């Protein structure tokens, strides 16, 4: 990462006094609006306004920075337990903190699958022990993601992990009866089913978006209709049973139209788009570099444009990273053999700034909604995505929107080197992240995990 100027921004000018975790952040623009000082004390925002530095508080200069509520990812693969060679809760949550996140939802496709209270509690505990962000496990909808019978959703909801989001992500809950039951059942726990919309028969062996490029490259196509037909079915099911549906990683213009229609009918559907689907297209596949292999696949420019419009107008509610780290050997191979997925936690905010803010489609207040407020609402995280006001939990991120940096996967905190943005210059840099009042990131670098992590580890 190139160090942006001014380099000294947001470096604490003094360590907090012993026993007191107090920070005065001076002069940040609140969600891109008015400038104010923020006094952070005992895990909360103590005061907002023009504040004289109280004794013992570390002062952070945030002149030129934008303050946002800490980002919340509804879609993260932390790989632990089972694939610690790809990522661990520790490395993944470090990457999250550097990306400005204070909470992530860890998808259920670990090994073993997060389909029991035991596994989700393990992931939750690992997250608290790491202490960089709030790690919220997602529970599997079906046992072993096999799509045959429901996992113990109630047990996971009632566990210490308090799971509210359930997903077989990576695999579509394609049986319509099972999907109906899942949607109905989660109502008992105020849960939501996050669907990976992919009709399996239409996508057998699929390698990339089906269209002009796949025809030339001779790679089996993943047609847009395979996503859209499942979304159409599921919004109707959600309406029928009166439940909440969340659509993961929407990737096509047609899906946007269906979701727009569903919302106009009052159906309780929310939708997510990934940073990469807001920018990249299937033209990148022409070189057969598997770093661009992802599921759902990169689509066309027409789809990218529709997704940006939909995020701007709220048809798509949130940005979810679908951060999917893979060991290098799973990408340094033939396209067909390569794993699907891209890293995203450390680039998401910059990509959103590039695609949505600098294009004039969204302001920073809307970014805060799409990347913090709405994701927290979908996951029912009560202390995340809160207003920047006195008395609120101090989950905050400070961004330097003027900075420019070049993505170098080798320098990222994630174990995954599979960033599709490698070598690109991106705008905006996370300068500081506060997680429950504690700076996990300062001056653009990892600072220290939340002190409660040390307590957990004992």
């Amino acid at each position, binding site marked *: 990462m190139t160090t942006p100027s001014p380099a000294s921004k947001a470096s604490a000018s003094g360590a907090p006094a012993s026993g007191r975790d107090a920070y005065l952040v001076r002069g940040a623009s609140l969600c891109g609006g008015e400038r104010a000082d923020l006094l952070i004390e005992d895990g909360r925002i103590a005061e907002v306004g023009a504040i004289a530095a109280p004794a013992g508080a570390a002062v952070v200069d945030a002149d030129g920075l934008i303050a946002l509520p800490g980002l919340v990812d509804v879609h993260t693969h932390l790989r632990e337990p089972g694939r610690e060679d790809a990522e661990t809760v520790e490395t993944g949550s470090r990457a999250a903190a550097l990306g400005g996140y204070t909470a992530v939802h860890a998808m259920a496709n670990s090994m073993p699958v997060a389909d029991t209270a035991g596994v989700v509690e393990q992931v939750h505990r690992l997250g608290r022990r790491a202490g960089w962000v709030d790690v919220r496990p997602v529970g599997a909808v079906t046992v072993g993601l096999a799509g045959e019978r429901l996992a113990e959703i109630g047990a996971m909801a009632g566990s210490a992990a308090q799971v509210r989001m359930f997903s077989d992500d990576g695999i579509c809950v394609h049986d319509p009866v099972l999907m109906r039951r899942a949607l109905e059942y989660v109502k008992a726990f105020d849960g939501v089913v996050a669907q990976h919309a992919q009709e399996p028969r239409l996508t057998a062996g699929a390698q990339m978006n*089906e269209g002009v490029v796949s025809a030339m490259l001779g790679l089996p*196509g993943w047609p847009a209709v395979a996503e859209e037909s499942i979304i159409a079915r599921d919004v109707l099911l959600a309406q029928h049973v009166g439940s909440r549906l969340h659509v993961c990683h929407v990737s096509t213009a047609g899906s946007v139209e269906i979701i727009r229609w569903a919302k106009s009918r009052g159906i309780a559907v929310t939708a997510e788009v990934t940073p990469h689907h807001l920018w990249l297209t299937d033209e990148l596949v022409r070189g057969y570099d598997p770093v661009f292999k992802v599921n759902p696949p990169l689509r066309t420019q027409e789809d990218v444009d529709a997704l940006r419009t939909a995020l701007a107008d709220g048809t798509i509610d949130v940005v979810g990273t679908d951060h999917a780290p893979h060991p290098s050997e799973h990408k340094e191979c033939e396209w067909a053999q390569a794993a699907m997925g891209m890293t995203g936690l450390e680039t998401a905010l910059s990509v959103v700034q590039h695609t949505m803010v600098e294009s004039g489609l969204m302001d920073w207040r809307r970014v805060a909604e799409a990347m913090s407020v709405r994701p927290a609402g979908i996951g029912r995280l009560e202390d995340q995505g809160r207003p920047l006001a006195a008395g609120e939990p101090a989950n905050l991120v400070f961004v330097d929107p003027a900075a420019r940096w070049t993505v170098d996967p080798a320098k990222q905190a994630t174990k995954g080197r599979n960033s599709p943005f490698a070598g690109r210059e991106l705008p905006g840099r996370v300068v500081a992240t506060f997680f429950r009042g504690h700076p996990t990131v300062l001056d653009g670098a990892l600072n220290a995990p939340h002190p409660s992590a040390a307590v957990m580890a004992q």
Partner: protein
Amino acid sequence: MKHLLSTRDLTPGDAIEILDTAEEMAAVNDREVRKLPALRGRTVVNLFFEDSTRTRISFEAAAKRLSADVINFAAKGSSVSKGESLKDTAQTLEAIGADAVVIRHSAAGAPHRLAMTDWIQAAVVNAGDGTHEHPTQALLDAFTLRRHLARVSGIASAGTDLAGARVVIVGDILHSRVARSNVWLLTTLGAHVTLVAPPTLLPIGVEHWPCEVSYDLDAALGEAPDAVMMLRVQAERMNASYFPSTAEYSRLWGLGDERFERFGTPAFKDTVILHPGPMVRGLEISSTAADSDRSQVLRQVANGVSVRMAVLYLLMSAKESTR
């Protein structure tokens, strides 16, 4: 030209240079001493992840006639079947000192990976990758067609292109690397190409290709094209509902005896039949048509060696390819 990965990369000048060089190679193949010293001391590795005796022996003959050392690496009988990655295999070949790698692979884009990564410095020749491309097959088809057209016009083929030639390609376009390579190459050389197939065996997006598309073989044959290229159709496609039965396929899209009778009319007197082989007799082509004097199948095989000699020579002899 450092690699041959796709015929889309070839300019008309590149293509004609390869075909003209192949003419000289063909002359060598007609001689008593069918050997040239051009690639003496160079090593060609035939890296075949997919069985294809026909293509392998053609490349092997081509390399040997240019005096190169040939190493046949059948990935099935090697450590690849034990899970060795393409990267490790490539680096092994690099260490052995391969100057060129001729790769056949079931995965589309595998030759691109070899060429575009830093795993190996050798020249890469795509000998067929998945359902993507098979550039040397298209080159030998173009070579065969060019010679045929020159013979009909009574001129020398060297230096000519295929301007004005009309070619109908029939069969499983969706799964055919031969069709893709031919569409790009033949149109680059000025030919007019019509693809004929059932709609299920045409890729989504084919309307953006520089050719015409038809579902009706009789209509496409109506104007007596210069060449009809029949592609192999696997009977198993029937099980995936690409077509209802082999009988119906043959009736609608096969070059059966009845359809072949049109070749006896004056309009068709100079129309030839091409087939990349191996043929499925009775499905896409009848024995009468396959064994007729219109069939160029054996000429295609012979020309394959000349074209592959030309490709290996042009890729390997130059300064750029020295290690």
